[in-house]
């Protein structure tokens, strides 16, 4: 029954079976034997036009847009483990574009627009749910700051609504309005924000990229770079040397380690960020809510679990686990915001490694080495940026110039002083 598969998988020809109602009925009638794998688990070739290091959401999205938008199909995505095994599988799945700064906002809005059309683009159910993102404020100063942010968003064509306490109470009546240490004075709501299914995003991009001929190569760790003079001409891997016209790295969390192989020192520290999920409950949190008096964000997954997180632990770490003080801090913030969750049991917690840059904003840029391109420094905000990050990195790799919405994400902004400090915290990564 799999006789058709090997031939079809070796060549780039056959597209994966399209996911549609007609095909669902057709496959149901033939016992679901004909779906085939969603993407090809490829063997490395000797050379490619472009190699993308990192098989997470950003790397796979980059490969997809390289093939789709720029027609560059001789592309490999190298992943040291299995695709989606890093931060793509360790986030809190929030999507939003509620940014203040002109260097950030158009980029994240591009991402939001790509999210809105992603399922049609990829022919894959990425479960994009625009349930709204509500940032609560608890003081006059914070209200002013959020009003300013909302106005900046609207001037960029992004939806934003400033809600008073009564409007918030109608949306989420169970929040701690009565006895709160920091009473809720209102919130900034982006209705188009929400959540998406992280694993489906990885698989959707992998399937669409693979369909266009991109090789997805797993268990292939990059151990060094091939050089010809000052130019990077490929990578050394655990599965042999591979030549490439251009190499792009999209390995946020481990960017410094990879850059060190090319003798680059970056404005990045790696920190651990923990996230949590509770046992499944009946639906009660309708949107994504963030607590403004601490750092806490929560939403409810379609399975019913409460998915929440807070601050990074605050010290350099490559361990995908954190310590108890951060757990306690997150849970205290949760209790301060919604005491109703006090008797809910925590099911799981996990840690992801964040590329924390010195101004809290990402980097999508060329490097001092010709042929080597950098995508990293995503701090807390990598997941929501996945589509635009891939789109803009593909643009940079294909055309050698930054995409219009990603011009501010320069590597040399720390030398020139053009920082993109959305939070206004200065060069202290553990405060961003």
């Amino acid at each position, binding site marked *: 029954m799999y006789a058709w598969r090997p031939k079809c998988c070796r060549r780039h020809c056959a597209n994966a079976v399209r996911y549609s109602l007609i095909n669902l009925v057709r496959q149901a009638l033939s016992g679901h034997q004909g779906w085939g794998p969603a993407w090809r688990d490829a063997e490395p070739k000797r050379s490619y036009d472009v190699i993308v290091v990192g098989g997470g959401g950003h790397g796979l999205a980059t490969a997809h847009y390289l093939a789709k938008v720029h027609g560059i199909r001789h592309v490999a995505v190298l992943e040291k483990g299995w695709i989606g095994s890093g931060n793509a599988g360790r986030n809190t799945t929030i999507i939003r574009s509620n940014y203040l700064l002109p260097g950030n906002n158009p980029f994240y809005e591009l991402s939001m627009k790509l999210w809105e059309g992603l399922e049609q683009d990829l022919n894959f159910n990425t479960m994009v749910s625009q349930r709204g993102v509500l940032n609560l404020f608890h003081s006059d100063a914070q209200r002013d700051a959020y009003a300013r942010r909302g106005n900046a968003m609207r001037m960029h064509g992004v939806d934003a609504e400033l809600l008073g306490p009564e409007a918030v109470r109608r949306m989420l009546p169970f929040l701690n309005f009565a006895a709160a240490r920091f009473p809720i004075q209102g919130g900034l709501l982006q209705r188009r924000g929400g959540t998406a299914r992280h694993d489906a995003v990885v698989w959707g991009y992998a399937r669409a990229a693979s369909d266009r001929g991109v090789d997805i190569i797993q268990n292939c760790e990059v151990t060094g770079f091939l050089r010809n003079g000052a130019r990077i001409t490929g990578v050394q891997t655990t599965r042999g040397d591979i030549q490439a016209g251009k190499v792009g790295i999209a390995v946020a969390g481990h960017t*410094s380690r990879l850059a060190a192989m090319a003798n680059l*020192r970056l*404005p990045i*520290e790696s920190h651990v960020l923990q996230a949590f999920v509770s046992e499944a409950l009946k639906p009660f949190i309708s949107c994504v809510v963030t607590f403004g008096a601490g750092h806490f964000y929560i939403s409810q997954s379609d399975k019913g679990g409460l998915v929440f997180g807070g601050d990074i632990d605050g010290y350099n770490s*490559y361990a995908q686990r954190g310590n108890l003080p951060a757990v306690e801090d997150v849970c205290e913030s949760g209790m301060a915001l919604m005491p109703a969750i006090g008797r809910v049991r925590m099911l799981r917690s996990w840690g992801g490694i964040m590329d924390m840059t010195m101004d809290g904003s990402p980097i999508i840029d060329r490097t001092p080495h010709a042929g080597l391109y950098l995508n990293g420094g995503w701090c807390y905000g990598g997941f929501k940026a996945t589509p635009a990050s891939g789109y803009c990195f593909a643009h940079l790799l294909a055309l050698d110039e930054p995409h219009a919405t990603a011009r501010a994400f320069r590597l040399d902004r720390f030398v020139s002083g053009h920082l993109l400090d959305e939070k206004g915290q200065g060069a202290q990564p*553990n405060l961003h």
Partner: protein
Amino acid sequence: MRIPCPFCGERDLSEFSYLGDAARQPDLGADLAEPLFKAVYLRDNPAGPHEELWQHLFGCRSWLIVTRNTVTHEILAATLAQQAMRG
């Protein structure tokens, strides 16, 4: 994580605050732009042993240089920063 403060003994992580990489700051020479950029913005960010500055904030308030493995969170050494900086 528990950090052995040379003054107070082994204490819980929650008593400390973190500053970051304990790499030496540049000498205040004539042309500061390049050395200051490197000191303020660039990091080695190693996976493995890392010398870093911690303050025993809710204890003796001493600044410490802690050598810690960033992959395992194992604390390898902790000395008073004052002594290390003098030496």
